[in-house]
């Protein structure tokens, strides 16, 4: 029972973390380009923001 609880808490949070990470553009780029209306990346740069730090 204790084993199942400990596993459930840790793995539940790991699943939630994975979902949140996948949805974040800054996982792969600190300054991601803004998404287009259909969810795709725009070709241009974000106004007032350098492409790379």
């Amino acid at each position: 029972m204790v084993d199942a609880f400990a596993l459930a808490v840790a793995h539940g949070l790991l699943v939630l973390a994975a979902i949140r990470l996948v949805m974040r553009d800054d996982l792969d780029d600190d300054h991601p380009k803004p998404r287009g209306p259909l969810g795709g990346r725009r070709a241009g740069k974000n106004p007032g923001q350098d492409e790379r730090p």
Partner: protein
Amino acid sequence: MIDLCLTGFLCFYLALGSRRPFLWVLAYLYVDIVAPQIISWGILTRIPTSLIFFTAAFLGWLLFDDKRDARFTGRQFLLFLLLIYCGYTTLTADWPVEAAEKWSWVWKALVFAIFLPLTLRTRLRIEAVILVMVLSASAIIIDGGIKTLGGGGGYGELRFFVDNNTGLYEGSIISCVAIAIIPLILWLAKHGTVFPPDWRVWAFAAGLIFACALIPVGTQARTGLICLGILCVLYLRTAKRRVLIVSLMAAAAMIAIPFLPASYTKRMGTIENNQSDQSASTRIAVWKWTLGYVRDHPFGGGFEAYMSNTLRFETVHTVTTGSTTTVERQVIQDGGRAFHSSYFEMLGEQGFPGFGLWLTLQLSGIVQMELLRRRWRKRTGTDEQWQAPLAVSLQLAHVIYMFGSLFVGIAFQPFVLMLIGVQCGLWSYLKRTDTRVSVKIAQRRAATVQGMAQTT
């Protein structure tokens, strides 16, 4: 049921990784820390889980990741040299079969520690790695914490999921690691962006820190108590409200001591009176043997060289009855006892060159984190507040490991090598993204070019 859930969990990470390959790196961290193949009894025990995720993590980076920001730091080079040297000592080991067995996991841990910093290109990735390391270890720590509260502890008796004594499932190792991650838990609670700070995050962090502090009680590992004491002292060095923190620590200790089991206080008493304890006496005898061994074998005896030792030592028991004190001496003969210290493990197994490389790797991490702390602590920008606290947390975790490893043979513990990987990644990332450093370099370059133009 647990078996199905663990398999489903790994499949979930494998599937998400097809969208963001970095998740395979995180999945490998999880597999290496929790070792679900040990807990499971179904399909996971029959497939090479670790190898699958290691390959996925490496190929994911090689084929899909942006490598423009990947840098090879000096400490990764030290890890590489250590890897080569350990490979050499394995070939010339005193106990070739046993050495090959240890080498089979050591090389993977070292290669992954070299590889990990190459993937840490963004702030979120650094945070994600720390988060997954903490949450993975939390599975074992929460389990141990609850069982300790329920009275299920005891030296060598606290059972985490399965009856296994490898990796983080060993009492002294999990005690050291549980205390070492406390600063990282605090950093995640304060500066995390995956789970931004709110009452739920703080409640979980407080519960997890409490469980971490219970692990040394549950395992009755003296290493854990020493680590906890050192953490308290070190934390005060950089803390802002020291008087409040000291008062809270003293109050927590006063409340906790009456609830500690008698077996625990008795065992902790042997830290001071180690002559009566066979485990402590064996360690001292092994360490003396190692010093003699390394004088004759300066290049080390390869992994598991301790198997050559034969020990003879005395334990002293003092029994007081009324006004009479009796001293009982017992001569014990033993052999093939493990090093019980990472420093002596490195000396005996890898000789002076390996020990030098390993120690340089450890000390340079502490120095680098101190440099980062000093560079970032006075910055006031909104995006410049997480760097110094993270450097301090990683430094504290490392110092605790170095004290804990005085009494436990965990020189190549994968969890600690992952921490070193994160330190290398943070060092490289901040060097690359720090605009002040970039401006200074640009100014220096401009001055050099100007000087050259004037001379010509």
